[in-house]
């Protein structure tokens, strides 16, 4: 196929499919913890880190990772202080992140570089960035598998998980860092404004069919990989922006699933 004759498209598929496998792993847990908007808060805050990196002359991805980790820890700290209003923690950090990104972006000399983080640039990533995505993705996947049952129980019922012996605080901390790192890396490739959709939409699709937690995770990964492949093909052949196209493919899938279930009279 012509599309695979280009090195930049080969890289886009490698990076895209890896991210499509990793992002739903984080996304399923986030959705089940009722923190769906956390991806938005982190990705917006990552822009503040990007701007800071560009101003200071350091790698913007490193700046994004640092900003995301700080934001994620901030969300977790506020969530613990206000457990009944946990969504407020996300709104506070997101506002702070957007505000900071807005102010700092005014000092960035090369605005094109900054803007590439808004919608991503999966077809323009360097070799170094590709290896970074591969390394981070494999690490996140491995840790997700190792902490699979801990993350499941915490998402289900944090109190019972603690009574059963799950080290809730440590696992929550590791998961927070994993989320932050995943969002930062994904922001560079698929876009800061888009990454949270890649967490939530495949999970929403998956939950329409799954009969247990394991299926929910596997189906969400499957859906995200499909969205990524169709999105990249569509972007290439129709001349569209890849980040937005991938998300729109997901939204169309979800709509078809809802309509299909309604027409077939399937409950739930």
């Amino acid at each position, binding site marked *: 196929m012509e599309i695979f004759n280009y090195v930049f498209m080969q890289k886009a598929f490698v990076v895209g499919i890896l991210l499509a496998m990793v992002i739903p792993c984080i996304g399923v847990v986030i959705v*089940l913890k009722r923190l769906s908007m956390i991806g938005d808060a982190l990705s917006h805050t990552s822009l503040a880190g990007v701007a800071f990196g560009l101003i200071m002359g350091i790698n913007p991805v490193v700046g994004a990772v640092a900003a995301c980790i700080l934001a994620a820890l901030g969300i977790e700290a506020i969530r613990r202080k206000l457990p009944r209003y946990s969504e407020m923690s996300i709104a506070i950090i997101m506002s702070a992140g957007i505000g900071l990104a807005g102010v700092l972006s005014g000092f960035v000399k090369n605005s094109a570089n900054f803007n590439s983080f808004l919608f991503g640039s999966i077809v323009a990533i360097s070799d170094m960035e590709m290896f970074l995505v591969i390394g981070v993705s494999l690490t996140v996947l491995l840790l997700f598998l*190792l902490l*699979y*049952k*801990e993350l*499941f*129980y915490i998402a*289900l*019922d944090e*109190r*019972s*998980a*603690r*009574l*059963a*012996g*799950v080290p809730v605080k440590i696992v929550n901390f590791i998961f927070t860092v994993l989320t932050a790192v995943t969002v930062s890396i994904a922001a560079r490739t698929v876009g800061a404004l888009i990454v949270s959709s890649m967490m939530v939409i495949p999970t929403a699709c*998956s*939950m329409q069919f*799954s*009969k*247990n*937690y*394991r*299926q*929910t995770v596997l189906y969400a990964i499957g859906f995200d990989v499909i969205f990524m492949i169709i999105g990249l093909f569509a972007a290439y052949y129709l001349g569209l922006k890849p980040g937005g196209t991938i998300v729109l493919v997901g939204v169309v899938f979800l709509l078809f699933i809802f309509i299909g279930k309604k027409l077939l009279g399937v409950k*739930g």
Partner: protein
Amino acid sequence: MNAIEMKGLTFSYGGTRVLNGVDLTVPQGSFAALTGDNGAGKSTLIRILLGELSLTGETGSFKLLGKDIRQFSDWKEVGYVPQNGMDTYKDFPASVEEIIQANLYSQIGLFRFAGKKEKEKVMEALCEVGMEPYRKRLIGKLSGGQQQRVLLARALVNRPRLLILDEPTTGVDEKNTEEFYRLIKNFNRDEQMTVFMVSHDRKRLAGLADTIFHLEDGVMKQITTQGEADCNGDL
């Protein structure tokens, strides 16, 4: 030995005193119940029993299964059945067997998945509460009564010495409530499992519990033993 032993325990949130010198003794193997109006301090007492609230700066003492609560760490000996499982698990995509298996965490251990032995324990717990045909079902697809039985099986799968239930039959119909209480009583009688249950259902408690405690404005006011409640269930 006493499963729960509180002597003159106080607890305050900020400057507001919620528990005011609570004395509570529940012998091992007995069935104790706690009643009280909303805001009486029941939820705080449950949180203390589950080790969620620090007692630093408070007066009085609290021993759980013979150990001072500050040194207590063997939480798998304590089974817990929450209230309102139905709201919590309504749309959660987990099967009944996954939920019960999760509670075998300390037996499965870090970085391992459940093996044949753990799966057998899950089946055994499900059989005990009559829910084995539902093991592959999504928890959210079950009725309120069935969900509470699943949560009971989750608590029982570790064979705890103390079972704490927090208003377990809220929103559950009469028939299923009756069946649920019968199961609890059987475990208490046949396995000498200590039961501590918070409930508003005074009428039923009178025929079930060995001891009924009543919490009012942070004070343990009345203690009634079986048979002392009148025909209306009033204390």
